[in-house]
């Protein structure tokens, strides 16, 4: 039986802790994050630093706290302990560097807005209080829609879009923010194959431009194809690192326990040779 890892003092004083190295190399470093819903721990002392300029998947079984990890690290939900640093700065002061893509199901798509209205929301930070989007902002928003293949739907009411198209609009809104760090919560959930392909292209483009991307991912079969790094969660931090060395049947067994058959595990971890 594995002992529960506590958000212990050793971690906080560890000289190898991410913040004490070079802050510029750590776009998103989380220390000892602990979250509970009504006295039921969901995350327990998770420490992690996203590798800069890499495409990383957060994987783990249902209820492993993958989405909670993103939300708590961003400060969207209350946490019991832990802190997040963005390039060495406290997260609250560094939200400009971050683009967050919530789960598509988190919003009511009957909201009175068109696709381009939603993308413009990503630019509100630049537009500022008491001012309206200008022609220039609309052009930027349209370009973002173009890069996800949605330019023809700019003036469509968002409720009339398919699930995949809605997800693309969300992605375009994040692109409009032009951030250094992208955090995405299940962008592939319930989308069609064409959208999945389009999203992967956008993610690769972001990484090619030197951005850091962290994605909550559900489908173990595609992890090897899409990502270079993974973070394995199961309430606690199980493992993180490059896919080749970390996406092993041993680690998956630790995270998923009996929920994955051993044949499944072998299939996933041996796919690397193919």
């Amino acid at each position, binding site marked *: 039986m594995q002992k529960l890892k506590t958000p212990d003092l050793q971690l906080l004083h560890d000289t190898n802790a991410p913040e004490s190295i070079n802050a510029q190399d750590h776009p998103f470093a989380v220390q000892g994050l602990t979250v509970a819903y009504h006295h039921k721990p969901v995350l327990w002392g998770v420490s992690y630093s996203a590798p800069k300029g890499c495409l990383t998947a957060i994987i783990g079984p249902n209820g492993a706290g993958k989405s909670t990890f993103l939300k708590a690290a961003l400060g969207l939900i209350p946490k019991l302990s832990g802190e997040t640093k963005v390039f060495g700065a406290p997260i609250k002061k560094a939200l400009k560097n971050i683009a967050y893509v*919530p789960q598509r199901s*988190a919003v009511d798509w009957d*909201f*009175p807005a*068109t696709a381009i*209205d939603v993308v413009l*929301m990503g630019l*509100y930070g630049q537009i500022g209080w008491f001012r309206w989007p200008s022609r220039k902002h609309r052009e930027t928003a349209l370009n973002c829609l173009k890069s996800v293949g949605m330019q023809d739907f700019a003036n469509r009411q968002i409720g009339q879009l398919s699930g995949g198209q809605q997800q693309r609009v969300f992605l375009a809104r994040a692109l409009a923010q032009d951030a250094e760090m992208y955090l995405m919560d299940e962008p592939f959930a319930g989308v*069609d194959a064409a959208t999945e392909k389009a999203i992967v292209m956008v993610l690769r483009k972001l990484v090619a431009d030197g951005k850091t991307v962290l994605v909550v991912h559900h489908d173990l079969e595609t992890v090897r194809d899409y990502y270079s790094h993974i973070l394995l969660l199961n309430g606690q931090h199980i493992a993180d690192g490059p896919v080749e060395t970390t996406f092993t049947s041993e680690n998956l067994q630790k995270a998923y326990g009996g929920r994955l058959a051993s044949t499944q595990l072998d299939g996933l971890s041996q796919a690397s040779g193919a």
Partner: protein
Amino acid sequence: MEQFFAALTMSAGYNTALVCVGAALLGAASGAIGVFVLLRKRTLVSDAISHATLPGVALAFIIAQTYFDSGRSLPVLLFGAALSAGIGVLAVDWIKTHTRLTEDAAIGTVLSTFFAVGMVLLTVIQSMSIAGQAGLEGFLLGATSGMLKSEAMTIALAAGLVGLAVVLRMKEFSLLCFDEDFAAASGYNVRWLDRTLLLLLLGVVVIGLKTVGLVLIIALAIIPPVAARFWTDRVPVLVAIAAGIGASGSFIGAAISASAPNMPTGGLIVLVLFSFFVVSLLISPVRGILAAALKHYRFQRIVHLRQGLLAIAHNEPVLEPLTRSILRKGGFMSGDGQPTFKGQSEARLIERDQKLWNLYREIYPEESHALADWSLKPIGQVLPADTVKVLEDELCPHLVVSTETPKGGAI
């Protein structure tokens, strides 16, 4: 009636005109803020706010009348109302965050308790035999008849300010209502935005107490945006329409009330607003039920016509009565159920169109899945010409196919 038209055209005296304009501004402001309360799905909070004003009004009256002999001063009473309504909102918030109760349960508890306290205090006032208590029940159902000029001015000014604040914060409120998490992750202080929204709502409720009354003020914040929602899918337009409906409804209601002083102003305004709602529900071309029924009717006919023509093309009997009648009306079928010459030729065109559609769905399953109109309209009207050409070449590689699209299927 004459008096009503006089009030409506603002020629029934300066005072009446001022009251009507004040009501219109109030309606505009509450319609505008109501849009965001509706989109935030918190319409019931306004009910809690309005009922929580009563103890404040009563207490303010007792204190002001006993110590300063100024119990009927509107600003004093409204200040008391705002204070107790604010406490009510905080109580709802506290119950929601510190217990497992949902917001509606919290609202129900707070609303009824505050209202009960207010009713007890009103009874106390009646038994205290202090002078000047006559106007107090006007706060329950609204009364504009005895309104002073200065009171009408206060209402108009305050409503104008609230409306302006809503328009200036429209962008941020939209973001908050659509995607709270995204707003927070973009650095907006969601808590404060939420508070601002509630504060403006509270402002409208308090200002409207005298005109509409606390029992019905919730309608002023809910009905205009709900009616406006039938007409548009854009937030700025929604705010404009809701403000317009709120303003005109309140103006007309106040004008009727001016010509019939015995009727409660609040009830009249709400009834006028309700008529706006019913009209919107019925005739709006965007989301109205008549438009939806018409759309469905047309859709059904297109499907039947197409299926009927395809049946003719395949030499199958057409059995469905509705399909037969549509074919006959279009001249595609004679009285004895035989396809006419026109029907035969149209059936050929539709059959070819259908083949192209089937081919398209076979070659591009993803794209066709996302398409709404597949096989309902002629393919040339939906897909770009080059795609159709590819499909035609695929269908009949040896023939030179004319690029003309069939005319059938469109009604």
